């Protein structure tokens, strides 16, 4: 017994030493800006953080189809309809890339969708706002995709290889969508007085929720410090938000539209635009599930999944029969 216990202790110490060596190798790789790949050792918490973030990102692509798909059947020209359909299709594709990337960490798409449907994993709060006019499609392209790109371009250099590579592909398409959204708003802004008003109203409603997409202020952001050490995140929420505001102000001017913030003004000393306070109470309410469309969005997603169950079962049953037959032929 004594020998066994001693052996066990020895084993634990060996494991501890091995883990310490792995940790050091991991830290060194991250510090040297090397990419962590699926077969590499990684800390459990690193893995968990990535799964959480990538799943939330994938869910946002899937839920984010809804507010825009809401206008596919009403798009006012065939050209715009084609652009919108292509965009919504791209979003489904982005969701698929991201679920695949998350699966390299040992989870599965089914498990992640189940967590989305049961409310255990979140999606971006922005998609809980309604698209009330055609101009909202443009405002989403310009502001929401613009904010997403500002957030996501640094992720192309994220320390986890599969995520970084997915982001390279996604950011290219997102930039294209963002330009299309801007161009849609420009056409409205230069159109009839009613179209101009429609564009201004949409920007008024989407501006603040877009600023909230960067997350809580730095002093309240739970995951930020660790994510920055691990180089999953490269800039703080407030830095990215400021960068976004600085980009949008001149774009709004060239659109001939105003941003709904009386405090917005150039600060010569900082070399940035100052902007007014964000309503964090609203942000928290939307995150808690009390936004305008939370219930509607998740209900539609669950319904599509539930009503599609028989189709997925049929595909699985057919595949099983087919592989049985192949097996029988081989035997």
């Amino acid at each position, binding site marked *: 017994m004594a020998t066994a216990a001693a052996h066990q202790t020895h084993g634990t110490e060996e494991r501890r030493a091995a883990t310490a060596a792995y940790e050091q190798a991991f830290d060194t790789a991250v510090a040297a800006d090397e990419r962590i790949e699926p077969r590499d050792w990684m800390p459990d918490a690193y893995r968990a953080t990535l799964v959480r973030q990538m799943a939330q990102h994938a869910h946002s692509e*899937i839920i984010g*189809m*809804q507010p825009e*798909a809401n206008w*596919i*059947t*009403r*798009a*006012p*020209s*065939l*050209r*715009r*309809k*084609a652009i919108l*359909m*292509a965009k*919504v*299709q791209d979003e*489904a*594709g982005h*969701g*698929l890339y991201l*679920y695949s990337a998350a699966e390299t960490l040992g989870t599965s798409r089914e498990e992640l969708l189940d967590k989305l449907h049961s409310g255990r994993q979140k999606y971006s709060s922005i998609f809980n706002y309604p698209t009330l006019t*055609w101009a909202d499609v443009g405002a989403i392209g310009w502001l929401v995709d613009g904010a997403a790109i500002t957030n996501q371009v640094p992720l192309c250099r994220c320390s986890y290889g599969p995520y970084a590579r997915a982001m390279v592909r996604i950011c290219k398409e997102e930039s294209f969508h963002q330009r299309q959204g801007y161009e*849609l708003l420009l*056409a*409205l802004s230069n*159109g*009839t007085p*009613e*179209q101009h008003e429609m564009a201004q109203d949409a920007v008024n409603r989407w501006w603040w929720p877009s600023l909230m997409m960067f997350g809580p202020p730095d002093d309240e952001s739970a995951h930020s410090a660790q994510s920055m050490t691990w180089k999953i995140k490269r800039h703080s929420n407030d830095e990215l938000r400021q960068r976004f505001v600085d980009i949008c102000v001149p774009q709004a001017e060239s659109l001939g539209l105003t941003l709904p913030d009386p405090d917005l003004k150039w600060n010569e000393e900082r070399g940035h635009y100052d902007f007014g306070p964000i309503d964090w109470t609203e942000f928290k309410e939307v995150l808690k599930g009390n936004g305008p469309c939370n219930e509607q969005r998740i209900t*539609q997603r669950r*319904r*599509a*999944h539930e*009503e*599609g*169950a*028989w*189709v*997925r*079962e*049929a*595909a699985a*049953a*057919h*595949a099983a*029969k087919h592989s049985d037959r192949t097996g029988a032929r081989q035997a």
Partner: protein
Amino acid sequence: MTAAQTTVPTTAALALGDDALVLSHRLGEWAGHAPVLEEEVALANIALDLLGQARVLLSMAGDEDELAYLREERAFRNLQLVEQPNGDFAHTIARQLYFSTYQHLLYAELAAGDGPFAPLAAKAVKEVAYHRDHAEQWTLRLGDGTDESHERMRRAADALWRFTGEMFRPVDGLDVDPAGMEAAWLESVEDVLRRATLPLPEGPRAGGWTAGAGRQGLHTESFGRMLAEMQHLHRSHPGATW
């Protein structure tokens, strides 16, 4: 305008263009509702191909947006088949199987000729081959899947059967006669249904109520509501550009 464009038979361009436009719209209604993410991509992809075809065809007949957004129900020339509501996934697949098989045969013939539709058909026939394959594969999976999917696929194939005869009525100004493709269509669809373990639907493939009706601007009831949704924004802002 070139001489070739001026001689495009408007009635035929509208018939083919409206088929593509209306079916594209129906498929667009699936966005965000598909049973699996891969089908979000596939259905949107097919819808986009069809919309692309519609835009070329309608532009041969006039201004694409005027034709899509400012015609009344009675002026649309699409088949009644393509305007049928989506129903469940099996219903959508049956509609797609019947139509894609027809469209593939039609475009292959048009592409082989030298008429005004040959260039469009030559490009579109490749897209439609993919649509047809997608519909066939799903017919096999659903027909030869579970008991429930078999029953749903059987009901869908039955329900839409009576709209299939209209596809083979002559189209004014088209340089091929769709009637000549009917045997090949039947053979192909029968083969897919048989491999999917589904019975061949019984009953007429057309009657006095459907024969050539869509092509003459006589549509089914749900079509007017579809147009109301599709056209309302465009019609609310006369003369605006988007």
